[in-house]
């Protein structure tokens, strides 16, 4: 068997794992790896402008494609810059393999140049991490890394490789099979529990299906749709679950939680049977925990991670298993049933909540951000892949862009990381979905990874950036308005760059939009005339616009405010 250096072994591992794209940034400790990347063309490297963006782009790629994302960063600052990206992926259970360079083994612990304890630093924000100390261990470790990242509840795995390990030589042999005695994720749900769950569903009078990101990561949308339609049960999605149930379907109540619709929140609160699927009763979703738990209802919780069950809310019927597998089993049991529960009365109540049109907003002379998202949905026919940043624009997109398919909504839900939008969009363009990729962002968020406009130009990525520019850190401003008597402490960005000229400086197209009537033409220009260009639409929106409905911190789901007068 031919001997090769560690770096080549590493690249061969990536090839074996069918990795098509890696997102990265070179540096001293990864020189050997970059040299081997140079000598082959199967694994294509996308050069970003900041390591944080490398990990975000790999994350965006993973969210859009369903495959594991891969990033390569150098030691020290390369690795520390990657941490935000890793933590973001960890909170949202996104499969990633992040390869970081490390100083040579003989230098570890010597405070060497660009040395940091990457395994120690990332330990709390990874699913698992490895430090490879011997060239012999590269292949088995990479095999484990991909296996751990993809299976069970997915997550990021960091593989730290010292420079000498990438120059040492060994033979390459990629293990075909892998058995880990300490890691054996459960996949199949317990049939007895599934039977119990179905029996409870069949007795429900006021059911709600509450579906989260787990439905997306387990590719279980079709199963969810089949289940809901068969039972005629209302469905609500978490922020992470959007798209797992068609947003335009009549059974869909919209998103629930802090900025959920009235019907989704009221129905969840007043349900008698709540079927939680791949969701984790997050504080932004259920509001005040005592208020939520105080209601008499039975909860069925389907999740692949046993530690998600009864973590925040006691559940009555836990089902641990892969969401797709469990839903499939439920559907099969339902196929044998003749009588579906009568939920007619319940739908009447829901229709009353729906009739209150909690997402209604009034138009003025200024551009309302909600209107922009509605127009975006119209012009893209609801089919674009939308990456968002974090803040008001994120919530408006979640509320007004009716996602019909999973993996079309890429957003940092758990960690709430500003700056992910543009790199997510970058990554998503490589996922091969054949759909327009849009980044909806704000004037705060876009500036956190603005340097990636250069990457987009280098690779000719025709991303459309919808910048909802309100000259404020809008979400914080909203809280200051509502809960801090309008003291806008440090949320007014008095100076901002000319975003149109900034886009142009990077070789892109920039269009400024200031009047409601110009939105549609500008969007058409971006999506039709400049189909193949990156277009930044700098849309100056009404600075006072707030995200409603809103469940204030500490309040229960049914105590939501429809506007600021209902405080």
């Amino acid at each position: 068997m031919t001997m090769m250096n560690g770096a080549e072994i590493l690249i061969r591992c990536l090839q074996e794992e069918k990795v098509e794209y890696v997102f990265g940034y070179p540096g001293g400790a990864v020189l050997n790896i970059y040299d081997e990347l140079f000598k082959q063309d199967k694994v294509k490297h996308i050069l970003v402008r900041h390591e944080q963006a490398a990990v975000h782009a790999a994350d965006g790629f993973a969210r859009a494609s369903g495959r594991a994302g891969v990033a390569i960063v150098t030691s020290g600052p390369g690795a520390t810059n990657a941490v935000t990206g890793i933590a973001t992926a960890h909170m949202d259970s996104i499969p990633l393999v992040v390869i970081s360079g490390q100083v040579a083994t003989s230098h570890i612990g010597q405070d060497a140049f660009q040395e940091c304890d990457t395994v120690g630093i990332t330990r709390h924000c990874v699913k698992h991490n490895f430090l490879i100390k011997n060239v012999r261990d590269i292949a088995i470790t990479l095999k484990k890394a991909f296996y751990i990242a993809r299976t069970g509840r997915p997550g990021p795995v960091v593989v730290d490789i010292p420079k000498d390990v990438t120059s040492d030589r060994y033979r390459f042999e990629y293990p075909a099979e892998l058995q880990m005695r300490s890691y054996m994720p459960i996949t199949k749900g317990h049939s007895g529990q599934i039977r119990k769950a179905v029996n409870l569903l069949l007795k429900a009078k006021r059911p709600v299906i509450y579906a989260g990101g787990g439905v997306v990561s387990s590719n279980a949308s079709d199963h969810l749709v089949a289940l809901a339609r068969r039972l005629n049960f209302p469905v609500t999605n978490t922020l992470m679950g959007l798209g797992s149930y068609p947003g335009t379907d009549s059974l869909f109540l919209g998103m629930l939680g802090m900025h959920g619709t009235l019907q989704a929140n009221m129905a969840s609160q007043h349900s008698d049977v709540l079927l939680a699927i791949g969701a984790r009763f997050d504080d932004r979703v259920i509001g005040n925990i005592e208020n939520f738990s105080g209601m008499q209802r039975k909860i069925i919780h389907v999740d692949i991670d046993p530690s998600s069950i009864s973590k925040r809310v006691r559940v009555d019927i836990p089902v641990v298993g892969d969401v797709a597998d469990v839903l499939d089993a439920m559907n099969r049991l339902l196929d044998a049933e003749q009588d579906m529960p009568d939920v007619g009365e319940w739908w009447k109540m829901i229709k009353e909540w729906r009739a209150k049109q909690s997402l209604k907003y009034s138009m003025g002379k200024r551009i309302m951000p909600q209107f922009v998202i509605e127009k975006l949905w119209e012009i893209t026919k609801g089919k674009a892949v939308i990456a968002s940043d974090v803040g008001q624009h994120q919530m408006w997109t979640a509320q007004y862009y009716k996602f019909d398919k999973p993996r079309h909504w890429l957003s940092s839900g758990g960690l709430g990381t500003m700056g992910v939008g543009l790199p997510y969009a970058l990554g998503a363009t490589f996922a091969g979905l054949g759909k327009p990729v849009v980044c909806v962002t704000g004037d705060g968020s876009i500036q956190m990874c603005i340097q990636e406009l250069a990457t987009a130009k280098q690779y000719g990525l025709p991303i459309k950036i919808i910048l909802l520019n309100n000259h404020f850190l809008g979400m914080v401003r909203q809280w200051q308005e509502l809960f801090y008597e309008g003291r806008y402490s440090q949320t007014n960005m008095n100076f901002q760059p000319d975003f149109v000229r900034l886009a142009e400086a990077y070789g892109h197209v920039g269009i400024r939009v200031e009047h409601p009537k110009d939105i549609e033409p500008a969007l058409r220009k971006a999506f039709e005339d400049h189909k193949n260009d990156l277009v930044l639409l700098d849309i100056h929106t009404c600075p006072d616009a707030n995200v409603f409905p809103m469940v204030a911190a500490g309040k229960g789901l049914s105590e939501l405010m429809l506007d600021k007068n209902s405080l």
Partner: protein
Amino acid sequence: MRHIISLLLENEAGALSRVAGLFSARGYNIETLTVAPTEDISLSRLTIVTKGGDDVIEQITKQLNKLVDVVKVVDLSEAAHIERELMLIKVRATGKDRDEMKRMTDIFRGRIIDVTDSIYVIELTGTCSKLDSFIHAIDRSLILETVRTGVSGIGRGDRILKL
């Protein structure tokens, strides 16, 4: 409620930090923690004494199981078990205190394992509360130094924690 959680984990660099880090990151408390390789050197056995309500202990067990290096977890205190801790205690032993210290050591079935004109080092094994009782039973001002290993535990009878 006090619980003794026992686990088998891969004997790998960083495995202990993952366990200890989990407790600090999630705000669980650790009263004692002991770890050493088992007869199979690829595995370490770790015993943690912690306190918490049933919900917290359930989460601790699940979170520990989720760590990739952890092979098996049991809550020993769920059933009959034996716990032991070793303490070495260095005391001033002069004059009348010298005899008294010897007597107390005998009563607690300890052993004096180092002797100078003025000092004893006493070795004592037992449950945590036995060791606590010894400390309370002797004159506190005579204690120069104590070192305790933390609790090791094992299930009674055919309750076996093995792969």
